[in-house]
């Protein structure tokens, strides 16, 4: 006795039906089969005979399913017909549309039942799509924030950034380009802007309720908020009246982010007194939520009027010094003035400013300043260091994610074709009983669309995780970017939707059209395995394309991986192990030059005396932070052909620095305790400096002359030559560098300390904190970091690209291998008869295996050929990002090809083995 209901359930699948309806049909059919069975037994058949007799009642389950589906569909249509007939005339005209919607709804149900029936397939596909689409969405939302979106200010398109081309002489920080006197000159002389603002950003010591911490201050001209069109969230913002008298406006505005993150939205903060750099200030308001300064990805905690600059940072006299280029200047163009007109009108004003700079002490390195022009750059997107650092890596990553998505599409399209061929019979029956091709194509497309939609939903989750991860990887600078990035905003969702739409067409349309081709139908009557050559051909092309794109990704992984390796193993010219650096900024705490030097001396002695500390020294510029100071200087014995001055980078250090960091002195002597402000001023220059400026003479005893921005000139005698070291970063060749002793550096106000210790990191840090607290509890330790960690941080973009391309490459290769396996297995199944015949006629099994493998390798060869061309092109594009390896490196390309061939052999081996183990007798009976 048999459970006929189970039997029917196992054979008949009715995915488009409502559950209770399907259940009823199954019950009725099994009930009737039961009748057949009982009758057969009653007629005296044995159990087995009765069983066979009953089974013979329904042989073609696919056909039955198709018929029932058709009956059911007509039923739904009939309902709708009657319903729409009952509506008025106007509604009747809409009937066509209603029918279509009903059809689509049925298709969606049918498709979801089909997907639910194959959970493994569905889960794998959805995950693949989630990765493919999610990676794209993540990269897009970062690129959008960094590169595409405008600042949240009024009419951002009217904003321009004023940038002079060429020549600067004096001390600058980053990309800041204007002195305060020049800003005033431009502001008062121009007629093209409705407003001109100056701003700079500084780290300051902020004391609230007695606790001192580091904060980032935007120091801005009084008209800043008015010109940008920013409104207060609480209290009021700065105005021109807050920026008139030198040191006369101790008021501060807080940013929304700071108010939320550090103050927990305390409302009573407005009107309260705080201290900045030890000076009392009053909080007058909080800026509106969307605004976080003009640097995208930067963090601004507070806004201070420019007139208060000398109070919060130590650039004393900086507001009056023409060579102190310490501000960014933005203008808002007047309505009706375009950028080119404004630029033309500003040139005379700009040159008048330059001439005043020179008249008041600036000494140009050469005569190129006369050709200098003022450029108006698009200011609508603000400035961003992150933007410069990440543009090329992000573009490379975006290219890779697009490749990954293309591979994903190819893979799914190929699988969909395979699935469609398994449904050939069903499709051909539906076409035969009168379904239009459009309907069937639509139905297959809807199934793909459903798959992609599920993938897209999962992709949003993947994107969220990826964005978070990427931002963490890109380091400190990106911290507040998380706040800025309006994750899940409409732009991102629109992007995801667009990608999902394109993906649906890519993965759905080709298989749908292919499997409903009119030429296929008659052939189908003969049997399924017959005429599927066309589909196999398309799948072969797709797999080959997948292999080509995989090669590109694996090659990229190789190139970036070797770049990271090369950078990590670059000889920096100094020892980074167990070395930590941190900054003390007594200047910001109100110390003068003399007290600063004194506290540095005390701190050095106390740290050196700590147990477990091998050595300690000072380095005004932090190592590996692109922070050496650029100077134009006169070198005794050097005269350039065009009369320009020498240019070199400088660091200011304590005696014992060279021994301590491990950069050998090649000639002369180190600085010593005897080099003081009172003694002869001395300098040590690098090998490269000698090569560049004093190649044929003895450098020892020569004089360097330079200025620190003011009119005063300082002279230093060269007493030693050091080996070159990569102090700024790992990538750039060491440039001409000179060193000065901190005791003789006239503008000393802060410095980094370098400490090499044998004790554990946290123990060392606690001891150092204790030492500094004993010296002055108001001196915070800033940017404490181990040098090895700093190197890791520097390498983050490279490592990020390398690890992303590696994981994308492996994923792509895996997908390619699976696709290849599918195609080969299908091809072998189709050729079972032929293979059987060959074997029956005495073909060698090894030869059969080779025949199949050769097919796989053929696809791999074409894929690798095409991929190599693409990989070489990509390599050239990213060459500037590489280090110690060329974009067209053939060893890397060869290695990547090797990985791919290995994957192809593995995935081709199984079908090949199956082919060679075909039983000739069975194969000939096949079909």
């Amino acid at each position, binding site marked *: 006795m048999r459970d006929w209901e189970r039997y029917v359930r196992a054979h008949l699948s009715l995915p488009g039906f409502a559950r209770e309806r399907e259940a009823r*049909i199954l*019950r*009725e*059919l099994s*009930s*009737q*089969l*039961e*009748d*057949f069975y009982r009758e057969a037994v009653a007629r005296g058949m044995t159990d087995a005979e009765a069983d066979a007799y009953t089974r013979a*009642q*329904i042989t*073609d389950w696919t*056909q*039955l399913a198709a*018929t*029932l589906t058709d*009956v*059911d569909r*007509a*039923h739904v249509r*009939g309902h709708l017909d009657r319903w729409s007939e009952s509506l008025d005339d106007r509604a009747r005209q809409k009937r066509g549309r209603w029918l279509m919607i009903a059809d689509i709804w049925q298709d969606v149900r049918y498709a979801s039942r089909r997907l639910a029936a194959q959970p493994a397939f569905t889960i794998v596909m959805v995950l693949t799509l989630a990765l493919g689409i999610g990676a794209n969405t993540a990269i897009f939302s970062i690129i959008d924030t960094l590169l595409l979106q405008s600042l949240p200010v009024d009419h951002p398109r009217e904003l321009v950034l004023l940038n002079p081309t060429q020549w600067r002489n004096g001390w600058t920080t980053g990309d800041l380009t204007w002195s305060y006197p020049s800003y005033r000159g431009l502001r008062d002389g121009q007629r093209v802007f409705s407003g001109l603002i100056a701003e700079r950003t500084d780290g300051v010591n902020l004391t609230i309720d007695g606790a001192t911490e580091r904060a980032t201050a935007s120091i801005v001209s009084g008209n800043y908020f008015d010109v940008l069109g920013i409104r207060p969230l609480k209290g009021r913002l700065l105005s021109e009246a807050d920026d008139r008298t030198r040191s006369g406006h101790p008021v501060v505005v807080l940013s929304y982010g700071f108010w939320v993150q550090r103050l927990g939205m305390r409302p009573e903060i407005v009107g309260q007194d705080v201290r900045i750099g030890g000076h009392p200030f009053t909080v007058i308001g909080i800026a509106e939520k969307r605004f976080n300064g003009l640097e995208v990805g930067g963090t601004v905690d507070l806004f201070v009027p420019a007139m208060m600059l000398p109070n919060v940072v130590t650039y004393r006299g900086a507001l009056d010094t023409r060579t102190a280029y310490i501000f960014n200047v933005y203008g808002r163009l007047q309505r009706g003035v375009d950028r080119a007109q404004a630029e033309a009108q500003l040139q005379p004003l700009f040159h008048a400013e330059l001439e005043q700079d020179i008249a008041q002490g600036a000494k140009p390195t050469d005569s190129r300043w006369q050709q200098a022009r003022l450029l108006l750059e698009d200011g609508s997107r603000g400035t961003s260091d992150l933007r410069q650092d990440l543009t090329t890596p992000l573009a490379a990553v975006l290219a890779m994610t697009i490749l990954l998505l293309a591979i994903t599409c190819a893979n799914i399209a190929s699988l969909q074709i395979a699935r469609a061929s398994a449904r050939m019979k069903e499709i051909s029956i539906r076409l035969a009983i009168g379904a239009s091709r459009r309907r069937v194509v639509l139905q297959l497309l809807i199934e793909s669309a459903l798959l992609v939609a599920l993938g897209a939903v999962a992709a949003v989750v993947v994107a969220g995780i990826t964005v978070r991860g990427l931002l963490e990887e890109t380091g400190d600078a990106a911290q507040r970017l998380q706040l800025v990035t309006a994750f899940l905003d409409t732009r991102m969702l629109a992007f995801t939707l667009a990608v999902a739409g394109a993906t649906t067409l890519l993965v759905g349309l080709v298989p749908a059209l292919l499997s409903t081709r009119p030429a296929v139908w008659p052939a189908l009557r003969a049997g399924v395995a017959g005429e599927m050559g066309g589909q196999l051909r398309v799948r072969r092309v797709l797999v080959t394309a997948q292999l080509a794109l995989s090669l590109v990704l694996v090659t990229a992984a190789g190139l970036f991986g070797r770049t990271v390796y090369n950078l990590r193993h670059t000889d920096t010219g100094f020892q980074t192990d167990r070395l930590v650096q941190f900054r003390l900024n007594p200047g910001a705490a109100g110390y003068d030059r003399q007290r600063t030097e004194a506290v540095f001396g005390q701190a050095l002695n106390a740290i050196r005396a700590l147990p477990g500390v091998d050595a300690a020294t000072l380095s005004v510029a932090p190592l590996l932070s692109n922070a050496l100071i650029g100077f134009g200087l006169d070198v005794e014995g050097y005269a350039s052909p065009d009369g320009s001055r020498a240019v070199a980078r400088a660091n200011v250090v304590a005696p014992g620095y060279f021994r301590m960091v491990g950069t050998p002195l090649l000639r002369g002597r180190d600085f010593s305790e005897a080099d003081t402000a009172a003694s002869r001023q001395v300098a040590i220059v690098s090998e490269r400096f000698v090569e560049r400026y004093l190649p044929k003479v003895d450098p020892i005893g020569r004089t360097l002359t330079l200025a620190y921005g003011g009119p005063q000139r300082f002279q230093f005698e060269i007493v030693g030559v050091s080996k070159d070291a990569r102090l700024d970063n790992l990538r750039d060749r060491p440039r001409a560098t000179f060193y000065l002793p901190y005791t003789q550096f006239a503008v000393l106000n802060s410095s980094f300390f370098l400490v090499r210790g044998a004790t554990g990191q946290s123990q060392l840090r606690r001891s150092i904190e204790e030492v500094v607290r004993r010296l002055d509890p108001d001196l915070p330790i800033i940017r404490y970091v181990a040098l090895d960690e700093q190197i890791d941080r520097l390498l983050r973009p490279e490592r990020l690209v390398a690890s992303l391309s590696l994981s994308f490459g492996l994923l792509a290769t895996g997908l390619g291998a699976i696709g290849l396996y599918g195609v080969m297995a299908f091809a072998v199944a189709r050729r079972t008869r032929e293979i059987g015949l060959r074997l029956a006629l005495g073909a060698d099994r090894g030869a059969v295996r080779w025949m199949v493998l050769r097919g796989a390798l053929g696809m791999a060869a074409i894929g690798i050929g095409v991929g190599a061309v693409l990989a070489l092109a990509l390599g050239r594009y990213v060459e500037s990002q590489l280090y110690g390896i060329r974009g067209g490196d053939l060893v890397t390309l060869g290695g990547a090809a090797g990985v791919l061939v290995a994957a192809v052999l593995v995935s081709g081996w199984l079908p090949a083995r199956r082919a060679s183990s075909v039983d000739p007798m069975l194969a000939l009976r096949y079909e």
Partner: protein
Amino acid sequence: MFSAELKKGSSEMLILSLLEGRPRHGYEIGKLIEARSDGRLTFALPTLYPTLLRLENRGWIKGRWVEKPGERRRCFYRLTAEGRRRLAEQRKTWETFIDTIKTVMGPSRA
């Protein structure tokens, strides 16, 4: 014995007429057609059942699961009022059609 087209055209009407007297279950309908036609007409399950479903969808017949004493639960189909009207219509059309065919094909009156 008869072509599929011929059978298809008549199956709905045959089923309706078999249900005219009393409700019957699916297996019984199949067997009755076979018996009454002396085996010349058979409707296999894959043809018969979809037809029942179609008739039911149209509201011409109505299936109901009933348990009769001493028997298994089965789905019994009965004719609805609509089905009765349709059967009368079809029967009339059919008779007219047969008459017409007979007239045309009848013995030559030459």
